[in-house]
């Protein structure tokens, strides 16, 4: 390994150890690593945004004589008026424009992808069972999912007291939600352990060259 790489790897390893030291208790090494990361990230983002937005989307179009770019640029500058108490009302104009456009773009597509398609999917569980003459575990799975969806939805239905049959279904709904949370928790544990494993792989095999 060449010297620059060795130095970079050692710095990364020492910073990793500094972060790990927080597991014992808060200390200046951890604080240093934390502040360094926040500072470097902020600096990196500024440079990235400068070269991917300000230069190509503001400066270069104006240089090329596309003067209509001045309209979004002015709207963008007006956003900064929020920093001044006297002039902050001005920022409402670009915000109104921004929210209007975002809402117009987002609502139909989000509604379609996250509500309509999901509803279709739930109905399809039954229709495809008939259409494809599904058998065995597919039928069991589909029925279980359908019952689970209905039970979980009934748990969130507060217009009727959760007693009697409604209460029993709602209770089953809680069970379904718990299974969902359990799966999420399991995946989360795996994700967190993955981070630990990767850091130890780095410390052992890339830094210490142990094995």
């Amino acid at each position, binding site marked *: 390994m060449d010297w620059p790489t060795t130095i970079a790897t050692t710095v990364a390893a020492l910073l990793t150890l500094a972060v790990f030291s927080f*597991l*014992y208790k808060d200390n200046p090494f951890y604080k240093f690593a934390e502040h360094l990361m926040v500072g470097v*990230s902020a600096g*990196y*983002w500024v440079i*990235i*945004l400068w070269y*991917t*937005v300000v230069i*190509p989307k503001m400066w270069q179009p104006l240089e090329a004589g596309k003067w209509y770019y001045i309209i979004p640029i002015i709207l963008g500058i007006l956003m900064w008026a929020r920093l001044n108490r006297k002039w902050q009302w001005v920022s409402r104009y670009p915000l109104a424009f921004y929210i209007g456009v*975002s809402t117009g*773009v*987002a609502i139909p*597509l*989000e509604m*379609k*992808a*996250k509500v309509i*398609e*999901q509803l*279709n*999917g739930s109905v*399809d569980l039954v229709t495809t069972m008939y259409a494809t003459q599904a058998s065995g575990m597919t039928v069991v799975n589909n029925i279980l*999912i359908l019952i689970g969806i209905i039970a979980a939805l009934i748990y969130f239905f507060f217009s009727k007291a959760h007693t009697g049959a409604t209460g029993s279904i709602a209770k089953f709904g809680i069970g379904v939600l718990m299974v*969902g949370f359990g*799966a*999420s928790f399991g*995946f*989360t*544990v*795996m*994700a967190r*352990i*993955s*981070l*630990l*494993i*990767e*850091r*130890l*792989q780095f410390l*052992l095999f890339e830094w210490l060259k*142990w*094995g």
Partner: protein
Amino acid sequence: MKLAEKMFAIDRRWVYLALGLAVLISLKIPFSIPIPISKEARNIYNFIDTLKAGDAVHLAIDYDPSTLAELHPMTLSILKQCFEKKIKVVVTALHQNGPAMAAAALDTAVARHAARSGEQMKNGVDYVFLGYKPYPALIILGMGQNYRIPFPTDYYGVPVDSLPMMKHIQNYDDVKAILNVSGTSATDYWISYGNGRYKVPLAIGVTGVMATDYYPYWQTGQIFGILGGLKGAAEYETLVGTPGKAVQGMKVQMVAHLIIIVFIIIGNIGYFAQRKKREQSV
């Protein structure tokens, strides 16, 4: 203090130490565990495998170093498969820290491919890295019309029109699928705006924390495959025949999970013992 109370009051630092040691030791001990391949991972592999040489896919790399452990092996495995199959890859990053991850992944994948086959994959010919632009929703919609709208030049400042690979690629109609490897909400945007608006086939590789949120989209067919966390990465490494960091990590995962299960059991025994004691005192 009784044993049960001691178990409940165990200092969390002992848990960290036990986990750290377990991970460290199991990394050093040579053993392997089977990696069963899920249908959702195999779907992605089969999809790419059935493409013809010269077809193009869009690889959206939307993660940062904090999720590198789980997602980088997925990216490298997908790139390996694409390079071996001579499939063109359009790469974008819609997260601020994504460009560095994408550039690093491409460098590694190109170097590994050259070492394996002696063939040098060329930027602009075999793959294109368009770089980063903010506001994922608008960029995804823009690319659906034409890649040149949000990305007139690639990451290195070269005009996209001058890149040989991009001559026949105008928009999503010209790529066979979008493969989104993401540790951010960019995946939601790809589902709503990429697949939702343009109906382009979409598969995702996400972190373990995110994986369960996206299974409903797999069930409805909005995405044709999911790689979930390190397990998904290990599955893909196995499928492309290059077991790497993810496969090595899965054996360690198993040991770490066993340790966690033991601590959960200890914690629960302590909790119920304390509750029983409280009830008796009342």
